[in-house]
């Protein structure tokens, strides 16, 4: 599959559309409003972080985009029809099948498309190479550390070369050092395969480092209150992490988040 437009090809906002959420509401039970009137235009090559306190509907939004549940009202439309392998997800847990080897786990999206292992072996090895685990293809998940399991999970998401990758707080359960490393890696991987990412996080630092758009959300009811741009060009490295620009962006995002936390409209 041809990679979509590379992120650096056009500025944010001028990229061809990939997906649009319009006036999306989601209600749980009879009256719990998880998400209210959410609009989001996703352009090809965007790296969007959904940032907000717990209960702000960021994971709900991700599940709606993934098709795991449906909006109560409003619409989510792909710019061109979605086909097998267009969409992949990385969840907070590595979510590997414990009975299958690393290679078999990465094979899963292809297997569910009805393809044979032998036919896609090269893609699987390539994906494992991208996350630096080609030597562990025959290991079982229980033999790996938390960070390595998450890499397998990322390899599984990359293997079909998706147009859109959804990541739901993938590094929240990892230690700081591993998380920094994986943050760098995820950017490097995106440079290589050029896909669009929607990334759910509650870490200001992570969202600023990774994304070019930060959508700040508030809770009760879950809704979008602001969108920030991070104009620092990719590739971003350790130098960005220690720059004044980064610090300023983090301050801006923190303030937006603070505003989000204080912005309950109780009912």
């Amino acid at each position: 599959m041809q990679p979509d437009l590379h992120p650096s090809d056009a500025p944010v906002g001028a990229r061809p559309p990939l997906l649009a959420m319009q006036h999306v509401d989601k209600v749980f039970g009879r009256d719990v409003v998880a998400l209210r009137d959410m609009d989001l235009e996703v352009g090809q090559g965007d790296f969007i972080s959904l940032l907000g306190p717990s209960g702000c509907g960021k994971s709900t939004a991700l599940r709606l985009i993934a098709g795991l549940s449906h909006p109560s009202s409003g619409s989510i439309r792909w710019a061109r029809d979605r086909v097998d392998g267009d969409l992949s997800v990385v969840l907070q847990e590595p979510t590997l099948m414990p009975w299958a080897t690393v290679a078999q786990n990465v094979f899963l999206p292809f297997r569910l498309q009805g393809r044979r292992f032998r036919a896609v072996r090269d893609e699987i090895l390539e994906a494992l190479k991208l996350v630096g685990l080609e030597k562990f293809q025959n290991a079982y998940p229980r033999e790996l550390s938390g960070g390595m399991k998450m890499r397998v999970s990322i390899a599984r998401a990359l293997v079909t070369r998706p147009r859109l990758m959804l990541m739901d707080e993938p590094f929240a359960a990892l230690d700081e050092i591993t998380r920094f490393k994986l943050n760098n890696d995820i950017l490097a991987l995106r440079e290589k395969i050029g896909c669009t990412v929607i990334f759910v996080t509650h870490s200001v630092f992570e969202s600023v480092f990774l994304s070019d758009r930060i959508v700040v959300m508030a809770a009760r009811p879950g809704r979008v209150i602001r969108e920030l741009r991070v104009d620092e060009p990719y590739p971003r490295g350790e130098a960005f992490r220690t720059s004044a620009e980064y610090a300023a962006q983090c301050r801006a995002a923190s303030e937006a988040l603070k505003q989000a936390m204080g912005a309950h409209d109780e009912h």
Partner: protein
Amino acid sequence: MSIDADHGLQPATAGSGLVDAEELARLRRRRAERIGQWVLPALVVILTIIAWDRIVVWGGIPHYILPRPGLVAATLVEDWPLLFESLLVTLQITLGALAIAVLGGVGLAVLFTQSRWIEMSFFPYAVILQVTPIVSIAPLIFIYVDSKIAGLLICAWIVAFFPILSNTTLGLNSADHNLRDLFKVYGATRWQRLRFLQLPSALPYFLGGLRIAGGLSLIGAVVAEYVAGTGGIGSGLAFRILEAGYRLNIPRMFAALLLIALTGIVIFASLSFLSHMLLRKWHESAIKRET
């Protein structure tokens, strides 16, 4: 072995002369446990046999009330052709019932997980079959079923299938929710979800049920033989016990009993081995702790 969690276990400096008393005690304890695991039960068996023998001799108990262990062994050898033939019959019923229990139990469990409605409708019947003592159902079965073998199989099956059904149902339903979501995102069909997610998730549960069912199918077979009660050629071990009891041939009763017990042990051990082989690579229950 864990790939990046084993630093800490390497000797700090080889031959440094440092000795950790706690670690040494732990190693000693572990070695003693490993030996004790085999030696102790063997010792208990030997002591029991000796005590049994002494009680019979010193108490002057006649052999038609309690035979000496030596006599039981001699009877086992002497009656081997007869007992072996009966053993084969009992074994045939037991394994046949177990096979049907596996097919029926897993089949029903799969059906149950495909439809909540089917599960709600039929699960109560499975429970009723399970809680009603087989001895009270067996006479009815032998009235309505002409073939004795078929009757025996049905009885043993009723006793054995429930643990497989309930464990497999539990296992099929306990597939990781995140993995279920993932399968959904990747557009898995119902069949793919069953084949690649639910069945592997259920395997450890199924194997646990299978070990219980192995013992139960032997019990079911023996109980059914007692109820069926007809003798002659093609009778199982339970009938040999009944028959020997009528004739006050107590040594043969013991010999047949010994064979039934051994059969049960062999069934349990083989199923445990099967379970270990299938799970050893990935399941917690089959993985030895390293520290």
